[in-house]
C-alpha cells in the first residue's frame, strides 16, 4: 500500500497523466489523423531481426512493472520511463500493441480474480460490523482503483491510442471497474446483496442519527460505479430510504409539535447529502416526492390535524406545507390543499368553541373583543402564509359561522354578549381608553355578520336599546342611530328591524310634542308615547286599577293626545310599563324632606299614606285594585332598602322616622323575573314560523317524503339559528294537526296536502 502513496514522486516534473491525456485530446484529432497514418503504413513496413530482439527487453520491463503494480510493489523507474517503453513497443509494430493490451487485460483479470475478489469475499463472509465492513470494503476498492489508475498512467499510450479507439476492447479503467461491478456489485449477485445491505444499514443509522461523514466516500463510489445502473442503486436507495422513513415516522409522530419541523429537516438533510454525493437531479426529485408522500401526504388528514396548531406558530413551516399542498395535484394526482383547508376550518371551529366555552364573564373583558381578535389573527395567517387564498378565508368564515350558530347555548351567549358589548361601548366613545366608534362598529359587525339568526339578535337588542333610550340619561343617540342604520343595512327590512327606526321616531316626536305640557299646572308633566308594536313587550297589564290622585292628569293627557290628530283618535294609551315611569315626589319625614324618584304605582301607594298613616294590606288591595302579588312587590320596594314604609303582620305603616344620607333617592322596583321570558317567547315564535314555512316549502316540492329525510333536508339547509330535531318534529306535528301534512299508512312518510 505504501507504494501507492509514493507514486507522485515518480512523476517527472510537468508530466502528469492529465497533461498527457490533454495532449492527446480532443479525441477527434487522434481519430482522424493518427490511426489512419498507422494503418496506411502497416502493409509497407519491414521488420528486422534486430529490432525484434531490441523489443525483448522493454517488453520484459513492462511486464515486470505490471506485476509490481498489481502486487503493490514499488516501481523501479519513473512513470515516464515506462511510458516511453510502452510507446516504443507500440510504435514498433501494431501487432505488439494488441499483444501487449491482451497481456495487460489478462493480468488485470487474473489479479482481480486472485486477489481483489477473494478479499471482498473474505470480508463479506466475516461478521464484521457494518461500519467496519464498509471501511474495509472501501480500502479494497481504493487499492483496486489505485492500481488501475497507475496502470492507466503507464499504459496511457495504449489506453488512449489503441483501446479507446478499438470497437470492442475496453479502456483499462473501464475494464477494471467493470470487473469489480460485474463480479461484486451487480444487482442480485450474492456479494452485492451483502454489500448493499450493509451500506443501507448504515444509511439508516445516518437518517436516524445524522452521522454522515463516513458515508460520503462509499456513497460517492457507489454512485460512480452505478453509471449504467447495473447495481440498480437508485431503486434500492429509494425503496430502502422510504422504508426507513416509514419506520421512523411513527416514532417521530409521537411529538406532533415538532413533527413537521423534524420531517422537513430530515428530508432536506438526506436530499442535500445525496446532492453532495453527486446524485442526479432526477433522482433527488424522485426521492423528495416519495419522502414527502410518506412523511406528510400519505396520512395528511391525520398528520395535519395534529400538527396544525403547532405549525401555525411557525411561519416557515406552514408556508412550506401550504406550498407543498399546491403541488400535490402535480405530484400525486390528488389535491391535499382541500384537506388543509378542511383541517384549517376544523381548527378554527374547535378554537372558537373552546374560547367561547372557556369564557368567564368576570375575568375577561369581553367575549366579542376576544373573538374579534381571533378573527383578525386567522385573517393575518391567511394573508401571511396562505397568499390570501380565498378558500382559506371562506373556510374561516364558515367555521366562525358554525361555531356561533350550531349550538343553542353558544348562540344565545353570543347574542347576549353582543348586546353587552354594545351597551358597554356605546356610551363611552369620548373616553380615551375605549374604542372609538368606527373601531367599535368594525368589531361589532365582524361578529354580527357571523350570526345566522340576526333577527333573534334584533329582538334582544331592541330590549337593550329601549332601556338605554328610555332610562339612561347620557345615551348617545347619534351613535345608536348609526349603529341601527348599519344593522338595517345588513339584515334588510323585517318586522323587527323596521321597528328600530320607529323607536327613534317615537322618541323624537314625544320630545317635540309631549314635553313639559303646559295644560297640567300641578306639576311638570312630560310623556313618551311609544308604539306598542315596535317597543319590546311590556309587563303584564294591571287591569282597572284605581289610579287615584293621578287619574285626572292621565285622562287629560289622553284627551289631549287623541284630539291632537285625527289619526290618533282610535289609539289606546296604556300606562302600564312601570319600569319607564319617572315621578319625583316630595316625602316629608321627621328628619326633613326627601325627593323620591319612583314609578306611578309606587307613587299611588305613597300617596295613599297622605290620608292615613296605616293601612291593612287587604284594604290596600281593595283601594288600589292592584293584583295581590304585584302590590306585594310595590310595597317591598318601598320597605326594603329605603324603609319609607314598614310592613308588619299585614299592617303597613308610614315610617315617619325615615332618614338617609342622601336627600334624593331613586327607589327601584325589582325587575319582574319573567321579563326576559317575553323576548325568548318572541324568538321562539319567530323561529317556529320560520321552521314551518321552510317545512312547507320543502313538502310542496317533494309532495311525499319520509319524515327523517324531511328533517335532514331542513337541517342541511338551515341558515338560521340552531335548531334541534325536537324543534323540527314539534313543528311537523303542528303541521299534521292543522292538516297541512298527513302521515302515510306506513307511519313514517309524510304527504303534503295541497
Amino acid at each position: 500500500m505504501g507504494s501507492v502513496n509514493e507514486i507522485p514522486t515518480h512523476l517527472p516534473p510537468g508530466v502528469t497523466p492529465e497533461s498527457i491525456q490533454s495532449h492527446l485530446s480532443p479525441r477527434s484529432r487522434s481519430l482522424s489523423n493518427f490511426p489512419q497514418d498507422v494503418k496506411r503504413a502497416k502493409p509497407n513496413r519491414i521488420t528486422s531481426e534486430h529490432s525484434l530482439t531490441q523489443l525483448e527487453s522493454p517488453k520484459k520491463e513492462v511486464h515486470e512493472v505490471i506485476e509490481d503494480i498489481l502486487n503493490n510493489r514499488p516501481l523501479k523507474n519513473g512513470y515516464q520511463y515506462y511510458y516511453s517503453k510502452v510507446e516504443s513497443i507500440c510504435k514498433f509494430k501494431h501487432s505488439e500493441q494488441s499483444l501487449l493490451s491482451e497481456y495487460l487485460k489478462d493480468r488485470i483479470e487474473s489479479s482481480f480474480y486472485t486477489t481483489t475478489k477473494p478479499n471482498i469475499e473474505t470480508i463479506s463472509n466475516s461478521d464484521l460490523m457494518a461500519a467496519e465492513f464498509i471501511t474495509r470494503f472501501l480500502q479494497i476498492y481504493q487499492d483496486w482503483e489505485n492500481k488501475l489508475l497507475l496502470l492507466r498512467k503507464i499504459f496511457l499510450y495504449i489506453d488512449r491510442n489503441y483501446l479507446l479507439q478499438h470497437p470492442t476492447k475496453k479502456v483499462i479503467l473501464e475494464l477494471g471497474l467493470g470487473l469489480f461491478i460485474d463480479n461484486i456489485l451487480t444487482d442480485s449477485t450474492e456479494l452485492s446483496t451483502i454489500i448493499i445491505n450493509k451500506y443501507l444499514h448504515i444509511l439508516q443509522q445516518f437518517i436516524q442519527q445524522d452521522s454522515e461523514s463516513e458515508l460520503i466516500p462509499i456513497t460517492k463510489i457507489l454512485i460512480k460505479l452505478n453509471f449504467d445502473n447495473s447495481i440498480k442503486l437508485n431503486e434500492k436507495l429509494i425503496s430502502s430510504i422510504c422504508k426507513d422513513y416509514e419506520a421512523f415516522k411513527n416514532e417521530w409522530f409521537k411529538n406532533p409539535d415538532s413533527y413537521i419541523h423534524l420531517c422537513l429537516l430530515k428530508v432536506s438533510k438526506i436530499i442535500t447529502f445525496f446532492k453532495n454525493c453527486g446524485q442526479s437531479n432526477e433522482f433527488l426529485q424522485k426521492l423528495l416526492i416519495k419522502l414527502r408522500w410518506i412523511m406528510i401526504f400519505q396520512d395528511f388528514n391525520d398528520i395535519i390535524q395534529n400538527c396544525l396548531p403547532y405549525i401555525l406558530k411557525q411561519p416557515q413551516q406552514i408556508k412550506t406545507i401550504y406550498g407543498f399542498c399546491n403541488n400535490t395535484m402535480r405530484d400525486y394526482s390528488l389535491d391535499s390543499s382541500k384537506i388543509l383547508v378542511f383541517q384549517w376550518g376544523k381548527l378554527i371551529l374547535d378554537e372558537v368553541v373552546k374560547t367561547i366555552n372557556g369564557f368567564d364573564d368576570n375575568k375577561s373583558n369581553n367575549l366579542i373583543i376576544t373573538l374579534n381578535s381571533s378573527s383578525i389573527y386567522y385573517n393575518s395567517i391567511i394573508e401571511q402564509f396562505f397568499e390570501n387564498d380565498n378558500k382559506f378565508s371562506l373556510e374561516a368564515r364558515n367555521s366562525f359561522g358554525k361555531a356561533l350558530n350550531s349550538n343553542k347555548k353558544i348562540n344565545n351567549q353570543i347574542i347576549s354578549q353582543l348586546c353587552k358589548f354594545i351597551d358597554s361601548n356605546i356610551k363611552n366613545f369620548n373616553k380615551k381608553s375605549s374604542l372609538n366608534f368606527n373601531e367599535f362598529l368594525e368589531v361589532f359587525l365582524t361578529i354580527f355578520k357571523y350570526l345566522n339568526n340576526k333577527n333573534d339578535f334584533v329582538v334582544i337588542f331592541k330590549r337593550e336599546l329601549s332601556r338605554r333610550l328610555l332610562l339612561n340619561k347620557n345615551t348617545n343617540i347619534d351613535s345608536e342611530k348609526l349603529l341601527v342604520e348599519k344593522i338595517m343595512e345588513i339584515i334588510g327590512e323585517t318586522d323587527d328591524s323596521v321597528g328600530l327606526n320607529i323607536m327613534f321616531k317615537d322618541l323624537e316626536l314625544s320630545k317635540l310634542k309631549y314635553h313639559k305640557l303646559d295644560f297640567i299646572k300641578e306639576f311638570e308633566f312630560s310623556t313618551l308615547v311609544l308604539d306598542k308594536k315596535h317597543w319590546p313587550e311590556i309587563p303584564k297589564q294591571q287591569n282597572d286599577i284605581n289610579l287615584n290622585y293621578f287619574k285626572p292628569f292621565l285622562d287629560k293627557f289622553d284627551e289631549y293626545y287623541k284630539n291632537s290628530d285625527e289619526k290618533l283618535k282610535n289609539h289606546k294609551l296604556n300606562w302600564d310599563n312601570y319600569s319607564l315611569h319617572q315621578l319625583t315626589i316630595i316625602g316629608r319625614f321627621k328628619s326633613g324632606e326627601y325627593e323620591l324618584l319612583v314609578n306611578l304605582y309606587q307613587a299611588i301607594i305613597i300617596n295613599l299614606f297622605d290620608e292615613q298613616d296605616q293601612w291593612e294590606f287587604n284594604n290596600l288591595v281593595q283601594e288600589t285594585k292592584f293584583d295581590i302579588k304585584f302590590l306585594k312587590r310595590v310595597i317591598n320596594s318601598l320597605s326594603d332598602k329605603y324603609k319609607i314604609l314598614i310592613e308588619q303582620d299585614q299592617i303597613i305603616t308610614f315610617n315617619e322616622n325615615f332618614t338617609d344620607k342622601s336627600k334624593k333617592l331613586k327607589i327601584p322596583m325589582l325587575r319582574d323575573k319573567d321579563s326576559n321570558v317575553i323576548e325568548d317567547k318572541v324568538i321562539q315564535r319567530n323561529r317556529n314560523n320560520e321552521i314551518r314555512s321552510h317545512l312547507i316549502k320543502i313538502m310542496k316540492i317533494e309532495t311525499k317524503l319520509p319524515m327523517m329525510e324531511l328533517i335532514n333536508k331542513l337541517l342541511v339547509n338551515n341558515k338560521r339559528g340552531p335548531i334541534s330535531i325536537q324543534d323540527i318534529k314539534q313543528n311537523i306535528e303542528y303541521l299534521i294537526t292543522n292538516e297541512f301534512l298527513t302521515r302515510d299508512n306506513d307511519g313514517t312518510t309524510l304527504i303534503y296536502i295541497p
Partner: protein
Amino acid sequence: MNTLVNDFMAVTGTNRSMATKYLKDNNNHLQDAINDYLNRKQDPKLIKVFEKYCESDMSTIEVNGTMNYLEDLGIEPEDIRSLILSYFLDSSSMGVFQREKFLNNWNKEKINNITDMKTFIDKLHDQYKDLERFQEIYEFVFGFLLEQPNQKLINYEIIIDYWKLMFEFLELPDKVNARISQWYEFIESQGKHLNRDTYVMWYEFVKEVIMEDAEGLGGYDEMSSWPSMVDEYVEYLAIDQ
C-alpha cells in the same frame, strides 16, 4: 230538484231513477223520501227497535235513548262493548246513533232484535281482543271523542281514561302494561293536550316497540319518525331509571 236527487242518491246509494221516484212519492220532501226508502227496504222489526229509542224527529238516537238501549243490551256505559257498539254503528260522537247507519249496519248482519244484538256484540268483543285487529277501533275512538267541528286536540285526562279502558281490555303482558302506565304518568306530568298524530302513533309504538322489547325498548330509534311526545317519553324513562 236536481240537488234533492243528488242528496237522495248520496244518502241512500241508489240510482237516479229510484231517487226521482221516491222524491215524487213524497212530494219532493227529502227526509220523508229517505225514511220512506229506508223503511221499505229495512226490516220493520229493526225499525221498531230503532224507534223505541230515537228522538221525536225519528232521525237519531241521542244520549238518553242510548242509555236505555245500552241497558236493554245489558252493557254498562263503561264497558268496552259500548265502544265496540259505537264503532260498529259508526257513531259520530259519544251516545249518538244515526238512523241510516243504525238500520244499515244491523240489516247487513241480518239482526233485528235486542237478544241477537247482544250476542253479536259479545262475539265482536271476543274478536277484537287482538292487538292488530283492535287498531281500527282505537283509531276510531279519537274522532269519536272530538266534540267541536274544528277541534284538533283532546284533553289528555279524557284520553287517558279511554286508554285505560282499551289497554285493559287488550290484556297485554305485565311488562307492557308497566310501560303503558309510565306513559300515563309522563302525559300527566306534561299536561299537554293530544293531537291525532300522537294518539295514533302511540298505538304503533306499543305494537312495534313495547310489545317487542318492553324492558329495553330495543326497537326504538331516535332517528325514526316517532312523534316528539314519544321521543320525550323515552327520554323521560331514561332519566327516570
